[in-house]
């Protein structure tokens, strides 16, 4: 194996892993506070990308010669704010009602919610049924080391993603809000007794998770330069898999799971050059094997089975 090719695969894998980790963090956050899998999260990522695209159309309509960086900042803000608000509305109107339902019903309901989002974008976004080109907002510079090309935009995206994850970690572990979120995740009733406003904390958690998803959507668009209405389904499934193999309710597990899944996909493509199309088959196959080996994820949930 050529060393430059290996470096190329590693960089691509890390990029993918960052995206998956950002999605998986949302799954695990929501599961933490409500014990519910919100499967529509992948489609929220897609909505984030489309919100950014709408912002791009709108801004370039008003100020045609805006600088790249300013526009990137503004469309990210537009996307994050709208999607965070959307996440709160979704939690208030839909998810909180599902708390008493059985796990299957909630999973199915949120899958249906994802379908609704997907179809809504396909039907009601102008030309939404076709893939949309995403604006190029990062400088197209790259450094070459032999056969290995390091794209400057990937580096920026990766650093931004890492910063987001670190700040999320600080928010959860160091602030009072984070403490409230952790308290609700640990025990809802005791948290209420300690004066934590349960509904508010849940809504804020959904806003945070959805904002992270929106960023992942913008990142996805910038990286591939193309978005389409159906991209959320696979992203959601991968994020869910990542959150599960890492161990639900654990942010580090979700990050680990995200990078692990990307690693598996890359490994599948590298190890089987004759059949790189099978990389997803390989990755999902290994996920099933991991579930057989570690039934509660790699970093297991700390729960006691009450009989």
């Amino acid at each position, binding site marked *: 194996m050529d060393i430059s090719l290996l470096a190329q695969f590693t960089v691509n894998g890390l990029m993918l892993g960052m995206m998956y980790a950002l999605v998986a963090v949302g799954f695990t956050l929501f*599961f933490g506070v409500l014990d519910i*899998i919100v499967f529509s999260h992948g489609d929220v990522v897609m909505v984030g990308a489309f919100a950014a695209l709408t912002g791009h159309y709108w801004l370039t309509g008003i100020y045609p010669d805006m600088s790249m960086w300013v526009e990137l900042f503004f469309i990210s803000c537009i996307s994050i704010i709208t999607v965070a608000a959307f996440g709160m509305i979704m939690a208030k109107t*839909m998810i909180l*009602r*599902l708390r008493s*339902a*059985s*796990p*299957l*019903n*909630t*999973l*199915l*309901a949120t*899958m*249906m*919610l994802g*379908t*609704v989002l997907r*179809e*809504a974008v396909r*039907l009601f976004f102008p030309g939404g049924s076709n893939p949309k080109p995403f604006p190029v907002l990062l400088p197209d510079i790259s450094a070459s080391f032999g056969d290995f090309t390091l794209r400057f935009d990937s580096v920026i995206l990766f650093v931004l993603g890492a910063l987001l994850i670190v700040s999320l970690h600080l928010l959860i572990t160091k602030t009072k809000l984070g403490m409230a979120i952790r308290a609700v995740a640990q025990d809802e009733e005791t948290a209420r007794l300690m004066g934590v406003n349960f509904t508010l904390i849940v809504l804020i958690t959904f806003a945070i998770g959805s904002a992270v998803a929106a960023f992942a959507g913008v990142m996805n668009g910038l990286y591939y330069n193309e978005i389409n209405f159906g991209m959320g*389904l*696979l992203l959601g*499934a991968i994020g*869910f*898999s990542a959150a*599960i*193999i890492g161990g*639900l309710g654990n942010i580090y597990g979700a990050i680990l799971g995200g990078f692990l899944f990307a690693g598996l996909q890359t490994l599948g493509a590298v190890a089987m050059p004759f*059949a790189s*199309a*099978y990389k*997803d*088959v390989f990755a*999902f*196959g290994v*996920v*099933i*094997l991991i*579930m*057989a080996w570690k*039934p*509660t*994820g790699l970093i297991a949930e700390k729960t006691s089975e009450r*009989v």
Partner: protein
Amino acid sequence: MSTNTTNSLSGVLCSFAFAGVITALMTAIFIVESQLLIAGVLLGTIGAIVISSKFGVTSIILKSLGENENLSNALAVLVTLALIVIFYDDHYVLFILCTILLYSVTVLGLNIQLGYAGLINFSGAAFFGVGGYTAAVLSQYHSIPPILTLVIGGIIAAIVGSILLLPILRTSGHYSALVTLAFALLFKVFLDVNDSLGGAQGVDVGSFTLFGWDFGNDITIGSYDVSFYVPYVLASLVMLCVVFFFVRRIERSWIGLCLDSVRIDEVSSSCFGINIVRWKIVAFTIGNFVAGLSGALYASILGYISPANFSFGDSLMFLSILLLGGIGNLWGTIIATAIVVVLPEKFQVIQEYRLFIYSTLVLLMIVYRPVGLLPRKTRTYRPGESS
């Protein structure tokens, strides 16, 4: 089965009348072409249901159907036969009938898994597809009789499903959902990239031949040209009857009791000496077998299958049908299948918005009426006993 003690004449008449009404309704829905009229028929039906339940007619009908169970089952078969006779030369209607019957079979299979044993299976369409692709491969060998093709399709689906047994038995809850979900995605991607099974373009499935008679040709009886779908509909009907009978027997037997107990409380069931692992394996395998069985027949009817027929969305549709009908209720399942299949086919206006409307409806259903249209009743241990 021995419920004939209260077999009153009025109950029998009531059941017959109801069957007549259903036949007329289905015929009307299939015949009417104008979208406005269809909307009218649908609104009329909903209105009739609302009004009749207001005046207690619904409960009378349900009671008389429930009292004479053998009669009701026979009437359901009669209604289907009547529809076949009415539409003997209409390919389209007969194909929709086939779809309803075979989807019902698949959902009955899922019902054993989820409704009785409580195993979530997000890859119903994948096992349906395993059956279909088995039929496609086997149809290249003309010497294999059709009935054997179907059974082999089911067996292969059960074998493929047994790969998932270990992770499913070890995991629970959301973790277990991931296993079948990952399998559903894996299966679709595998079919898309696999060249020997036709790849994303799909593969042709040869039609059935029985004693030198090709199922793919139209039949002429006397001066009537009968659609080639008629034998297929009859075959589907037979399959549904057999599977329905089989599932009903499972439900009413000690096996059903064991499965129910495993679903409701694993810990107490194992305290009573019920082998949880064994019953989960039994339920999962039977369910996949049934899905593969119906998939094999469906593929032969379609004559051509592609990975798009067996996507994750289809698995979701099967589960939603189960949920809409009321988990564990066999009749609810069949009615829900009919609604989910027929509505978008006939209501062309909503064709484009089909998935949108349908997923919104299921979503609202789960939020506001999580038990489904016809929830399963609590077991009655003696006929006529109210629980």
